[in-house]
């Protein structure tokens, strides 16, 4: 492969959006006056939260459907799983795994349905996806604000509105917070470190920056999975 000569002008034109964003972020960091450690910490946390979602956008783009604006449907289905574990109060890593087990088949079903709609609207996938997201939001509200408590009996004062019908706007998920990363922490603490006797305090931390290892590893695994799929 012949290496192309680096041309700053071409590089700038091709990557204009990231460059502008970088400048904006840089200015923002200076203007905010926050410490670099704090910003890096927040950045890494958010990276762990959002990376998986963003990576999931790759496949539809490659398949020629543009950006998957209907991604919210997958997120809603996952919330079904989360609400189930909240109702049965299954916490920790087990809770997260059960959520995945419940939501994946549902997500596949809704994915097939979405695909059918999108195949009927070729050339307009993005707007269809967008409207599909809004439509799903309507159904979602119907199920969780109206049906829960009336048709679907759920009795858990922690998540149900005081009127007995409908799920609260925000459900406390402390019981599974960071459970992926706490798992790593516990494994390290219990298996490795108990034998060696080294004191291990927080999650994996480098220079004051806490890193959610397992979450990021999961993202990397997904990235490799997508790369593997696209090879064929």
């Amino acid at each position, binding site marked *: 492969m012949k290496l192309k000569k680096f041309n700053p002008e071409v590089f700038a034109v091709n990557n204009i959006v990231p460059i502008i964003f970088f400048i904006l972020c840089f200015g923002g960091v200076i203007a905010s006056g926050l410490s670099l450690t704090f910003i890096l910490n927040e950045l890494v946390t958010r990276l762990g939260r959002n990376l998986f979602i963003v990576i999931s956008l790759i496949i539809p783009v490659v398949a020629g459907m543009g950006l998957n604006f209907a991604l919210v449907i997958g997120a809603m289905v996952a919330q079904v799983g989360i609400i189930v574990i909240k109702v049965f109060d299954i916490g920790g890593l087990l809770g997260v795994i059960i959520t995945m087990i419940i939501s994946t088949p549902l997500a596949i079903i809704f994915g097939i349905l979405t695909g059918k709609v999108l195949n009927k609207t070729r*050339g307009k996938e993005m707007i*269809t996806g967008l*409207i599909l997201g*809004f439509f799903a939001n*309507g159904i979602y*509200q119907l199920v969780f*604000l*109206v049906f829960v408590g*009336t048709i679907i009996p759920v009795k858990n004062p922690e998540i149900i509105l005081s009127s007995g019908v409908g799920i609260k706007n925000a459900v406390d998920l402390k019981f599974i917070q960071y459970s992926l990363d706490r798992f790593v922490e516990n494994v390290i603490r219990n298996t490795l470190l108990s034998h060696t006797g080294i004191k291990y305090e927080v999650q994996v931390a480098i220079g004051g920056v806490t890193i959610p290892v397992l979450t990021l590893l999961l993202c990397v695994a997904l990235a490799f999975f997508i790369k593997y799929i696209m090879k064929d």
Partner: protein
Amino acid sequence: MKGFFNNLINRYGFPKVAITIFIIVIFITAILQGQNIPVMISDSLVRIAMNGILVLAMLPGIVSGTGPNFGLSIGILGGLLATVLAIELNLSGMTAVFAAIIISIPICGLFGYVYAQLINRVKGDEMTVGTYMGFSLVSLMSIAWLILPFTNREMIWVLGGKGLRTTIDVSARFGKVMNEFLSIRIGDLFIPTGTLLFFGLCCVLMWLFLSTKKGIAITAAGDNPVFASASGIDVNRQRTIGMVLSMILGGVGIIVYSQSYAFVQLYQSPLMMPFAAVAAILIGGATDKTATISNVLSGVILFQILLTTSLPVINKLLPVGNIAEVIRIIVSNGIILYALTKSGGKEG
């Protein structure tokens, strides 16, 4: 029976038939519940007159080939700007409404022209781009409402003395002036003649415009851009005219809406308004490529009757949360989805 329904669906389209059946069911339930039917009819008439022009604004966009104007919120913002300017000038009554309309026309026209330049560069993706342009401009204007130097005490926050309120009460100024003009009252039944007449006038003007030479050129450009440009029609120009008209109607529409509602809603309220208008014209039987005045009329009548009458009936059946709002979301987006799947038939 099945043949009868198939016949109806072939003739009027599935959404129209489904919505009509739903409305009939609602009316029967309303009578059984002992609801006040004349009030329900009056409310529906007010809502039809209120939203009519916003739905009519979809027509020039679809006819000129840019599809349903999902960026209508830009025109709505122009109309809102004109309304607050009219209040700032301390106008009231019918003068305020027409002053606002006159101010809004150049503003919305300019917005429409600039927006059309963008839309002409993203052919095929007008709907997505329009939605996002609408979203981003609503947010931009939310900043503007806060920092624009308005001084009228009726509009600005009581505390702080800067920035416009989220809802401005205009009932003392020009609330319902158009509704009350020549209005008819029979017992509980109220007919907002003035607003209905104004909506009718706009429809007639649009119909006349579309049958002029210019209007036919716009329709031709929308129908078949390749053929139109081969016959010497500047397609981009026709699309620009369509977009400008659509935005102006959006501005006029929100002024009529605000006077009927007696409140001016700023900030996030224009965000989802285009979707309701798109849903209405699609219920009327329009597709994203063809539309007529009769689609506008039947669409706005059916959609608004559905929304207005379902609210008291469903609230009595199931007094839970905001189920009427949920139904509005499902129906309007469901209809838009249905229309997209019907017209998108580019199999291959």
